[in-house]
Each structure stands twice: as structure tokens, then as C-alpha cells.
């Protein structure tokens, strides 16, 4: 047993001295200015044309998808949607800095990360329509993506729960000797949950190679961040956990990329968690169930429209001569068409057969679930018109 002295490194004062806000300054990493030109002393990350364009196009795709799905919800074709407009760089550019074997555990506004990994338009549509082709069998609401083949953990609604889970997942990766980390996305609102505290503290103490990526977009539904916390954002909490922390401009793809790349390297090399706070703004409504005019002004929104992450990277790409504007506009049209076509095609795909209702509760359905299913099927056979989605395939 080694002797401990938990005071050994503490300095002394002899008058009451108060530690408070403003004592430290947590600056924000910005590489590209809002106009797309790099800061003079900035180090632009080593990104080749292919990757830069993949980031850019994924962001554009997501914006197209978001617009289209919000419209589809208004038309009553899907029940719910949640857009990430204005925050595309945070999820796309961070995912770009990862390797495919890294696990992604996300909140729900990180469709960009998923698209970057290769989730197809068809897969998006299958999920949105909860149909039988969806990998999660349509059991959750739209936007609760999940794809094992892409190392993207199925999303669950209760906020913050994925944070300690990510610590555990990363611990398992480390124990298995994998060259992989876990990235965990969450909002600044979710960071108020007790699970946030548990997850960061455990990751620090148990040396888990996990990247905690907070999208601080200023709002949790209607609640502005100043009614969410009184400290200096989420980054200022990192110190309290002894977790290395980086704050970035979440609307700057290069800052996000550079920070995530650095975080991944640190996490792997030192077996430690890293916290990234990406400062951004939720330009979209919280979801299709929300109307932000009840809690914020158009002026505020328009200020942030000027910091658009897609335009910023686009300007840089143009400056670099990597972007053919005409071609891009054609591509955009193609994307729109593709989304629309897939939507139309997929909305006809049926939901799973009713037999699936008792699958995956356990590894195999126990007797009581089989009994419940067989009673249900008998009942449905009696009233087929009442259960039109499934009664034709009993």
C-alpha cells in the first residue's frame, strides 16, 4: 500500500481567496474566418482535395436532406424530423477526422457524421419511414439512426445516456487492444444531465480513449444556454474532471477537423478522454414539432446565417481552385432529385411483419411473448381492417 497525501501539491494562502468565472480564458480555435480565408497564423490541416470535397458535399447533402424531410413532414408523409441546419460542420468535419473502426455514439442531430460514414439516401429513407428494410426494424421514431456495419450506435432519445456508455465502450476497445476510439456527441443541454458528469469523470479516472464532442448550439429546445449553465460554456468543465479540452468554432470545418484529429491522437496515445466544445448555432427549429419564433428573434437567426459553415468551406475551396461552381450546382440538383426519388420509392415499402413485434426483446422470444403474439395474430385475423399495415401478412 503506497502512502497517499492528497494535499501534497496544494499551495497555501492565508486570506480568503475566491476562484470564480473569468479566472481562466478558454479561447476558441478558428482556422477559417467567416469569409473562408484562413487566419494569418493559422495552421490549415493537412486535407487533400478529395477529403475536402467529401466534407463539403456531405454537408450539402445533409442540408438538402434536411430541407426535403422537413417538407415531407409538413406534407404528412413522415411523422417527425429534426434538422441540423447551420451545424453541419460540427458533425461532418469531426467524423472526417476519425477512422471507420471508431465507434460513433451520437445524440440525434449528427446525421452529418452518419452520412460521412456512408449511410445511403435509401437508408435514411428506410429509417424515416420505419419500414422493414430499416436496420433497426422501424421500432423507433424518425431520426433514431443506427447501423452496426458503419460503427454507428443506434440512437436513443433519453438525453445524456450515451455519455457514460461511450466511456464504457471505449474502455472495451482499449481492453480488446483495438486501434480505435469512441466519439460521443451531445448538446450543451444534455450536458446538464447527471449522466454527463458520470461519463466524463469515469472516463478520466478509468483512462478511456473517448472523445466527448459537445455541440454548443445555444439552445435546448426553447431554453437558451444562459438558462442552462452559468459557467464558461461546457469547455470550462473539462478542467474539473482533469479532461483535456479543446474549444472550437463549430462552423469552421477545418477547426473542427483539426481539433478532432488532435483529440483522437491524444486519446489513443495517452488512453485518455478529450472534451471538444464546438461553438455553433441551431439555425433550424428544434424539430418539426417546434416553432422557434416563440423564443427567439429573426435578427438573432440572421446573424448566424452569416456564419454558415457550408458557405465558409465553399469559399475556401473556391479560393483554392478545388471547386467548380457550375458542377456543384448540377450536383446539388442531382442530390435533390435523388432524395425525392428515394423518398417516393421508399414510402411504399411496408413495415415489418407483425412477428417482429416480439423479436429482440430477448435473444430469443420466451414463452409468454410467443403466447402474446399468437393471441395477437388470432385477434388480427378477426379484425384485419383495423390493422392494415400488417394484417395482410399474418
Amino acid at each position, binding site marked *: 500500500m503506497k502512502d497517499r497525501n492528497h494535499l501534497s501539491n496544494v499551495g497555501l494562502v492565508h486570506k480568503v481567496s475566491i476562484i470564480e468565472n473569468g479566472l481562466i480564458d478558454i479561447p476558441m480555435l478558428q482556422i477559417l474566418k467567416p469569409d473562408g480565408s484562413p487566419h494569418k497564423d493559422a495552421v490549415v490541416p493537412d486535407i487533400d482535395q478529395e477529403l475536402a470535397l467529401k466534407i463539403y458535399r456531405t454537408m450539402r447533402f445533409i442540408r438538402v436532406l434536411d430541407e426535403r424531410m422537413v417538407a415531407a413532414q409538413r406534407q404528412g408523409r413522415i*411523422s*417527425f424530423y429534426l434538422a441540423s441546419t447551420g451545424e453541419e460542420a460540427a458533425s461532418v468535419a469531426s467524423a472526417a477526422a476519425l477512422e471507420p473502426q471508431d465507434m460513433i455514439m451520437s445524440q440525434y442531430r449528427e446525421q452529418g457524421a452518419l452520412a460521412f460514414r456512408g449511410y445511403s439516401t435509401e437508408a435514411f429513407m428506410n429509417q424515416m419511414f*420505419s*419500414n422493414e428494410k430499416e436496420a433497426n*426494424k*422501424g*421500432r*423507433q*421514431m424518425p431520426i*433514431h439512426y443506427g447501423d452496426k456495419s458503419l460503427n454507428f450506435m443506434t440512437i*436513443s*432519445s*433519453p*438525453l*445524456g445516456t450515451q455519455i457514460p456508455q461511450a466511456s464504457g465502450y471505449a474502455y472495451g476497445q482499449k481492453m480488446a487492444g483495438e486501434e480505435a476510439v469512441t466519439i460521443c456527441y451531445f448538446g450543451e*443541454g*444534455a450536458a*446538464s*444531465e*447527471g*449522466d454527463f458528469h458520470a461519463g466524463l469523470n469515469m472516463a478520466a479516472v478509468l483512462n478511456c480513449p473517448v472523445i466527448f464532442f459537445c455541440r454548443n448550439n445555444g439552445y*435546448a*429546445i*426553447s*431554453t437558451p444556454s444562459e*438558462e*442552462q*449553465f452559468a459557467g464558461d460554456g461546457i469547455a470550462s468543465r473539462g478542467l474539473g474532471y482533469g479532461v483535456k479540452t479543446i474549444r472550437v468554432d463549430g462552423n469552421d470545418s477545418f477547426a473542427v477537423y483539426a481539433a478532432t484529429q488532435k483529440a483522437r491522437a491524444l486519446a489513443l496515445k495517452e488512453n485518455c478522454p478529450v472534451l471538444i466544445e464546438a461553438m455553433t448555432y441551431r439555425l433550424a427549429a428544434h424539430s418539426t*414539432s*417546434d416553432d422557434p419564433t*416563440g*423564443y427567439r428573434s429573426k435578427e438573432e437567426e440572421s446573424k448566424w446565417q452569416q456564419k454558415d459553415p457550408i458557405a465558409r468551406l465553399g469559399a475556401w475551396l473556391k479560393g483554392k481552385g478545388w471547386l467548380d461552381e457550375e458542377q456543384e450546382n448540377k450536383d446539388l440538383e442531382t442530390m435533390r432529385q435523388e432524395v425525392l426519388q428515394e423518398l417516393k420509392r421508399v414510402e411504399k415499402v411496408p*413495415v*415489418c411483419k*407483425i412477428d*417482429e*413485434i*416480439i423479436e429482440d*426483446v430477448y435473444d430469443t422470444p420466451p414463452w*409468454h*411473448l410467443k403466447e*402474446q403474439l399468437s393471441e*395477437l395474430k388470432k*385477434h*388480427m385475423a*378477426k*379484425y384485419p381492417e*383495423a*390493422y392494415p*399495415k*400488417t394484417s395482410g401478412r399474418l
Partner: protein
Amino acid sequence: MAKMNLLQAINNALITAMEENEKVMVFGEDVGHFGGVFRATSNLQQQFGRDRCFNTPLTEQGIIGFANGLASQGSVPVAEIQFGDYIFPAFDQIVNETAKWRYRSGGQFSCGTLTIRTPYGGGIAGGHYHSQSPEAYFAHTPGLKIVMPRNPYQAKGLLLASIRDDNPVLFMEPKRLYRASVGEVPEEDYTLPLGKAEITKSGTDITLLAWGAQMEVLDKATEMAQKEGIDAEVIDLRSILPWDVDTVCESVVKTGRLLISHEAPLTGGFASEIAATVQDKCFLNLESPIARVCGLDTPYPLAHEKEYMPDHLKVFEAIKRTVHY
């Protein structure tokens, strides 16, 4: 009297309570300026100020912990949990703290003034996490009261009674009916009794028992049964804890048959407690087994929501099985 939907009735009850007693404070996620994601707390901040109606940070355990302390201090907190599905992070604060506060202190301190409001239930395409009916999870907890209204009139009267009752009350609102259920509601102050069931239709052949949104389903099934010559007595339990054993048993003694229905999964649902008690108290009166028509023993499945729900057809079939046992 005014026509109100269920949300308006709740909003009206909150205004009544806040006007009457300045110690009443209403808080939770998004309940402040915005008036809540369902708008149940609309205009309260505007009318009563930010100190008495406010947003909290996004932490259910914090909301209830804070509310417990506030209640024990003598204020009258009405805390909102945005969805019943998100009440579980507060489970420890409710089950180990709220409920045991008075007992553990020998009656010196209590959370009696606390009311927790939360929307519950399915039928809104909400899937796993916007559809649960968690009442049974709490009904195993001495010290709590649990109340679930079925319509706007009941909602106002029961909510006012809950806020004024000197015991912590979990008030669960059928969100499917928030806008769908509209009815006449007195604008003046009134309360309805806690712990008392209500016979909403008398009958002789079978007793049908439910609460909250499920009452609508019973009503439909009752009509269908009536057409087949079955005359059901229908009871709204209203209070899940403590529950009104007398009213239920008196009815069962009369009809000889009981059917209970809830949306929550069958196993361990509150229907089990009722069935266990009634088979004991009415053993010699029962002419057929007590039937339970409930959700399946699975998480709440989005794509198969219709099939999952204990709808009027399932209740109707079970009525026939029970009556013709």
C-alpha cells in the same frame, strides 16, 4: 363554464393555484417563457414572473431534487417532467426521497406540497421514448399518490386537489388527449377527490376498469358490447395510489366479473395489483377470471403501435370471453 381542451384545463388549474397561493411555483424544462413543449404552462411566466415560473437546466434528477428541497422548505412546487419516459433519471429522488421524506423524519419534515406533472401514454407515433405509461413503476412506493385524469373537467379538479393535498402527488396527463379531449370546464375553483374512483356508467354484467386515456377505449368497447346485449359497468380509477378498492369491489360483487385495461406492458402493470386484490376480496363473487387487456411485454414499438395497443377491439373481445366464460 367554458369549453376547454385538456391542456387549457391544466393551464387554467395552474393559474387558479398560482393566484390563490403565492408559494406555488411551476418549473421544468422549457416551461418558462415558452410555456412548455405542449404549452401547458403558457403565459404563467408572463403573469406570475420569472421567479415563480421558470426553465430549469435539462436534468430530471435535478428538477425533482430541487423540488423536494423546495417542498420541504414549505413552498408549493409544481414540477414538470417533459415526458413520462424521461422521469426515470429522477426515480431515485422520487422513490427514495420524495416518498420517504415524511416517514424517515417522524413527520418533522415532508414533501407533501409537491406535485409532479408529466404527460404519459401512446398513440402519437412516439415510439419507445414518447409513449410509455410508467404508473406501475411508482405504484409500488408507499408515500406517493398517483393521479391520472381522463378529460379536461377531471384534469382541472384533480390537479387542483393534487396541488393542495399535503402529500406528494404524481399527476400523469394523457398526452394523446391534450388537444383531442374537449369539454365544459367551470372557470371557477373546484376540486375532485383523490383516492376515489368514479363509476362513469352503471351496468350489471361486467365491471370494466381503467384510467386516463384508456377510458375512451373502454367507452367504445362498452358500446360494442351493449349492441351484443352486454351491459357493462364502467369505472375510472382516477387515483392509482392509494386506490379505491371499495368502489371496485362493490361493483365486482354486483357484476361478478372484472376487466382491467392499461397501455403499459402486462407483466407487473397496475392491473396485476388490482386483480390480486379483487380475487382475494371478491373470491366468492367472481364468475370468471379477472381479465387484463394491456400492452404487450415488449418495449413500445413505433411501426407496430396500432397492433401493440390495447384498443377497443381487444377490450371488446375480452369482454365477450369473460362474460361467456
